[in-house]
């Protein structure tokens, strides 16, 4: 026979089960919503990417697309000057932004006294990362092109994009420095290491993967930037390459390329897209695929490097 209290327990159990069931359902619903949100972004991007590939594949598969200069004829127009231009601009960006960014971050994390001035700098660095890129373009037009008289050249573009990604590099470097356990530093100090030795032997070494990731993500952002490059006056038609940075005779390095005119991938794509003829839109789609691929490869490389570096660190 059921006694009243057992009845009560059963009833209570049912209630609990119902509640668990309801909460599980909520869980389920939420995961569906989350998945949908993910899909919105992913499917849209994927559709766009696939659409670009479908449109641009005849060009993507032809070798001459990568070895030809721009032309008025869509069929013989190629990406060469834009590819070389983008690479050289990225080189200058890397050389200018990375050492400055990494050293600034190390200073802020390890050396800077904690006072209002450091706080001010910190806030400003974070804010700079969110400044629209066109602002950097305007700054560069005034500073590099006119005041420093560097002209509408590769060095101007490289330095502009360098400024643009500097905050990204600083923030990423600081994050990765911060992730190093304080115990590592204390241990080093305990055996009598100087600050510089700590930074050099431990901090930089262990945070290298994170720094690299930040740098590559910054570079991947820079390679797709159009607005600041247009502002400083990149060219649209350029059917020759800048002088080679490496020469066969001493001193083997040549800086003339820095002052050369140039074009970059996004500008070439934009210029093809605004043509009346449909045939050029195929070229534009193919150029779009190349930009996305370069960005994807760079980001993939960053993830891989971070993973490898992490694996090697054993504290």
């Amino acid at each position: 026979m059921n006694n009243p209290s057992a009845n009560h327990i059963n009833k209570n159990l049912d209630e609990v089960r119902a509640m668990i069931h309801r909460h599980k359902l909520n869980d389920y619903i939420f995961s569906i919503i989350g998945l949908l949100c993910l899909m919105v972004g992913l499917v849209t991007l994927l559709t766009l990417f696939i659409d670009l590939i479908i449109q641009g594949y005849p060009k993507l598969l032809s070798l001459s697309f990568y070895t030809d200069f721009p032309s008025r004829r869509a069929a013989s127009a190629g990406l060469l000057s834009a590819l070389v231009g983008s690479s050289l601009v990225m080189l200058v960006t890397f050389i200018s932004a990375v050492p400055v960014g990494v050293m600034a971050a190390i200073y802020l994390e390890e050396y800077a006294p904690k006072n209002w001035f450091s706080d001010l700098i910190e806030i400003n660095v974070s804010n700079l990362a969110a400044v629209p890129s066109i602002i950097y373009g305007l700054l560069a037009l005034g500073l590099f092109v006119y005041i420093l008289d560097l002209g509408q050249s590769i060095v101007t573009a490289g330095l502009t994009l360098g400024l643009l990604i500097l905050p990204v590099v600083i923030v990423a470097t600081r994050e990765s420095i911060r992730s190093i356990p304080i115990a590592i530093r204390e241990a080093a100090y305990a055996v009598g290491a100087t600050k510089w030795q700590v930074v050099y032997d431990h901090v930089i070494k262990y945070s290298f993967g994170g720094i690299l990731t930040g740098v590559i993500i910054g570079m991947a952002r820079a390679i797709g930037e159009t607005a600041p490059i247009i502002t400083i006056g990149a060219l649209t038609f350029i059917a020759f390459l800048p002088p080679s940075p490496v020469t066969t005779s001493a001193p083997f390095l040549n800086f003339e390329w820095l002052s050369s005119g140039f074009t970059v991938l996004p500008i070439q794509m934009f210029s093809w897209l605004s043509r009346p003829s449909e045939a050029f839109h195929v070229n534009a789609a193919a150029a779009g695929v190349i930009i996305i691929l370069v960005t994807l490869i760079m980001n993939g490389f960053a993830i891989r490097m971070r993973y490898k570096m992490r694996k090697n660190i054993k504290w």
Partner: protein
Amino acid sequence: MQYQFTKYSTIASLVTSLFALPNFAVAADKIIKIDGSSTVYPITEAVAEEFQKSTKTKVTVGISGTGGGFKKFCRGETDVQNASRPILQKEIDACKEAGVQFIELPVAYDALTVVINPSNDFAKKMTTAELKKLWEPAAQGKVKTWNQVNPAWPNTPVKLFGPGADSGTFDYFTEAIVGKAKSSRGDFTASEDDNVLVKGVVGDKGGLAYFGYAYYEENQDKLTAVSIVDKPGKPGVLPSKATIEDGTYQPLARPIFIYVNATAAAFKPEVKAFVNYYLENSKPLIEEVKYVALPAKEQKAVITHWKALKPGTGFGGKPEVGVKIEELLTRIK
């Protein structure tokens, strides 16, 4: 870590040496620098491509718009300026201040083409007065249906597309239709990318847009060009090579120009050679990129004008509609 440190220090010293190099803006090669209008760009690009193949002189062409290009040109930064409208007074002043003299050379004709959706069968012919009714500033927010322009037309909504206010095309169209440059209603879909305008009219039954002839030519199967009645009683004229050459497509046929830095023309043989090549060989190239080349007589007059290296403008710093090229050249003393 030793390795990485040396790498960083090399990079750092490289950067310092970059800034320390006082004047590396000396290029050994001769480069002709061209910038300016996106309308003229396809022609100049084609000429530059062919010229480079035959002479090995380097040519660069940028797109800064007519206005942006003139700023660079009048600072002496470029040798040749592409312009879809004549130089304006403030630009003449800027050039004068910097000591830059220029030679004005009409190189081809473009026809501003008014287009409608192919399903629109009532507005295939429009008078300039009707276009004015549609585009003048007073129409803003008021003229919303086709029958407000012409009572014979249906009461269906009209959707307008046009180039942005920075474009030379916008300047010319407003000057020619409304009567005052830059005077236009503001409630239309503006885009600097003419393909956006094409798509807009293709997708909207009540759509109307204007842009350069080349964009119509490439999209003839998707758009209808409006034939333009210049004055009441005259027949409607469609844009074409013939109607531009014989001067009947008025007022929307316009000459487009290059401006050559007079000092460069006199002292830089490569610039001189380029402009010679441009004026003498561009005819097939102009037709290939869907513009209308100057008739032989006008081409000859322009070449004579160029050989004489006469600086100055025939417009006096003001926009002007429907001026004949030969008359224009005689104005420059």
